[in-house]
């Protein structure tokens, strides 16, 4: 036994003499970290990197079958999903891997922000992290283009429409993005090159700087409230921490990272097997216009913002918003580079995080339900509950028919059934007087088209008669407050 060990030892020494593995270990995996950093809060960075590795592996395999040609991409995607051995599985892992990567990256960023890890001397760690976030979101967006289905096509259209708003060089920017004046084969080839070469290469390059910084400036110690960062003293303090409680990252501080890594992989596998791959939806055929273009989950909040912004702010916000956010994120370690690290004594940081998550969450929910989109088929398929038909006069029933056939239901629900662009009509008779209803129908306004030209006076009469009758039982019709003496008109 001892002899065997001796042989193994001398074999290792022989290899080490040539490859310097021990030295490599000391300066990388074995570098000393504060014991306090071996915390569950510190697992998100390595988990994000793990997701990226999974994306690289599955992406390379998908690229062995996928054909990045506008004429064939969709067909090969269907082939991958339905015929290629385990193709559905690889697609599903790649799709869920991307969702996990974006999600865990956001958690990592949040943790780093709340723990003040971006402060002196880790400015470049933070800045490279911000660049990695941009690259990751770029990978997510170009990835949904790879599906080259209808959502991909119209998503490109939305991108081009935003580029077209750039002042002076809008047309040129559109051409740069699409590889020509129109969405076509060169657009897909361009996005393919970005998705598989440029952006992953960028991630590898920036990740190496990001990790280099972890080695040169050390991982952030677990912040203690009241321990202030000063440029003059921090380096000495950190060296003292390492001396007092420093442990080699491997094997003393990596255990939680390893557990988290397996949870991430199990999570991706579970989602992949339970929910399968995303899409493809219908083919990218622009003539098929019966489509409801929606971006992937992580861009729904932008989709929602685009619907909810006031008109006048739209172009500056779409073009300037990302720039301003970028400048703030880049500048953060410079205008807030010292002082308190612990989130327990940084209420502004905590409020910023809460507000950001609440806003993103609400916007994503709104983007998912998109109440501002007309329900394009409501006029054909939305039913009218019996209580809104019963006991109505022939004129009122005629009005209901007009409401149905004139697509009013696409935007107006009756008792929740129909579109939600405009107000629900179920109680409109108790909110607007007959005169107000006539004006609203004929002139529109407040985001409603004017129907004056498209309805005959008889139709308007019937529609308004029906709407006056729409009010909860026992509630009188709306009255004109400027004429309090007048009896309500039925």
């Amino acid at each position, binding site marked *: 036994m001892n002899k065997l060990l001796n042989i193994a030892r001398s074999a290792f020494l022989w290899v080490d003499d040539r490859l310097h593995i021990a030295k490599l270990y000391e300066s990388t995996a074995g570098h000393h970290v504060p014991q306090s950093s071996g915390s569950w809060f510190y697992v998100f960075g390595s988990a994000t990197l793990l997701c990226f590795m999974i994306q690289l592996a599955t992406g390379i395999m998908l690229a062995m079958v996928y054909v990045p040609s506008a004429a064939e991409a969709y067909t090969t995607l269907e082939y991958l999903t339905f015929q290629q051995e385990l193709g559905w599985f690889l697609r599903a892992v790649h799709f869920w891997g991307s969702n996990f990567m974006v999600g865990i990256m956001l958690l990592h960023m949040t943790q780093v922000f709340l723990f003040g890890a971006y402060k002196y001397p880790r400015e470049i760690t933070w800045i490279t992290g911000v660049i990695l976030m941009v690259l990751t979101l770029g990978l997510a967006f170009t990835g949904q283009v790879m599906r080259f289905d209808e959502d991909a096509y119209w998503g490109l259209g939305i991108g081009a429409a935003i580029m077209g708003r750039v002042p002076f060089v809008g047309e040129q920017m559109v051409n740069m993005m699409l590889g020509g004046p129109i969405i076509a084969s060169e657009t897909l080839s361009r996005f393919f090159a970005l998705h598989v070469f440029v952006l992953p290469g960028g991630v590898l390059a920036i990740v190496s700087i990001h990790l280099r910084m972890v080695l040169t400036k050390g991982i952030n110690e677990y912040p203690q409230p009241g321990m202030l960062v000063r440029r003059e003293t921090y380096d000495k303090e950190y060296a003292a921490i390492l001396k007092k409680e420093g442990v080699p990252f491997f094997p003393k501080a990596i255990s939680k990272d390893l557990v988290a890594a397996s949870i991430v992989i199990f999570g991706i596998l579970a989602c992949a097997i339970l929910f399968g791959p995303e899409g493809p939806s219908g083919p990218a055929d*622009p003539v098929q216009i019966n489509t*409801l273009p929606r971006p992937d989950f992580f861009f729904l909040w932008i989709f929602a913002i685009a619907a909810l912004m006031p008109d006048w702010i739209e172009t500056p916000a779409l073009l300037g918003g990302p720039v301003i956010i970028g400048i703030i994120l880049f500048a953060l370690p410079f205008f807030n580079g010292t002082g308190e690290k612990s989130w327990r004594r940084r209420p502004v940081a905590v409020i910023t995080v809460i507000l950001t998550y609440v806003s993103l969450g609400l916007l994503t929910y709104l983007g998912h339900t998109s109440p501002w*989109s007309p329900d394009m088929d409501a006029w054909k398929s939305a039913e009218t509950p019996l209580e809104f038909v019963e006991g109505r006069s022939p004129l009122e029933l005629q009005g209901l028919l007009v409401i149905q056939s004139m697509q009013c239901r696409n935007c107006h629900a009756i008792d929740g059934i129909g579109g939600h662009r405009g107000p629900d009509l179920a109680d409109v008779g108790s909110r607007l007087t007959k005169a107000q209803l006539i004006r609203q129908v004929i002139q529109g306004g407040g985001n409603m088209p004017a129907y004056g030209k498209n309805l005959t006076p008889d139709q308007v009469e019937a529609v308004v008669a029906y709407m006056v009758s729409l009010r909860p039982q026992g509630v009188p019709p709306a009255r004109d407050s400027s004429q309090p003496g007048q009896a309500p008109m039925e």
Partner: protein
Amino acid sequence: MNDEPCKPCDCEGKKPSRRDFLLWIGFGLNAVAGAMIGIPLLGYVLSAFFKPNPLTWISLGPVDQFPEGKTRFASYENPLRREWDGDTSNIPCWVRRIKGNDFQVFAINCTHLGCPVRWFEESRLFMCPCHGGAFYEDGGHAAGPPPRGLYTYELKVENGTLFIKGGVLPNLSNQNI
């Protein structure tokens, strides 16, 4: 060779040694070579930026297929079509024949963010499925976030055939559409 470590600044104040001279030649040659590779590379990538967009006359077929007073769906083939474009070379549009040779041809793309607008004959409205934009029969802005009315193609009628000037993705930057 010499066992002593090299001292690059050996020649302080003296004329540059042959080695220094070679170093600068090396830098210089590679700068030239780099430019000779880099400039065409940039030109290749940026060609899309500088290429002007050629608009061409495209036939939408005989005018008879468009009834007067109606708005009909039509599509045409992208004049810049390539073999491997697939379905993406079929571009849709809405043709409104007002009367006789009086036409309006609208781009399918909503002026807000480019989603495909749908025509509703009964209410005489175009509605967008993305953010709730709506347009009147004549393309005018009716409701929602779009900043202007629908894009209209320049058109002409020759020998009973309807032509439009197209070939670019309509967006806010090309005002000639």
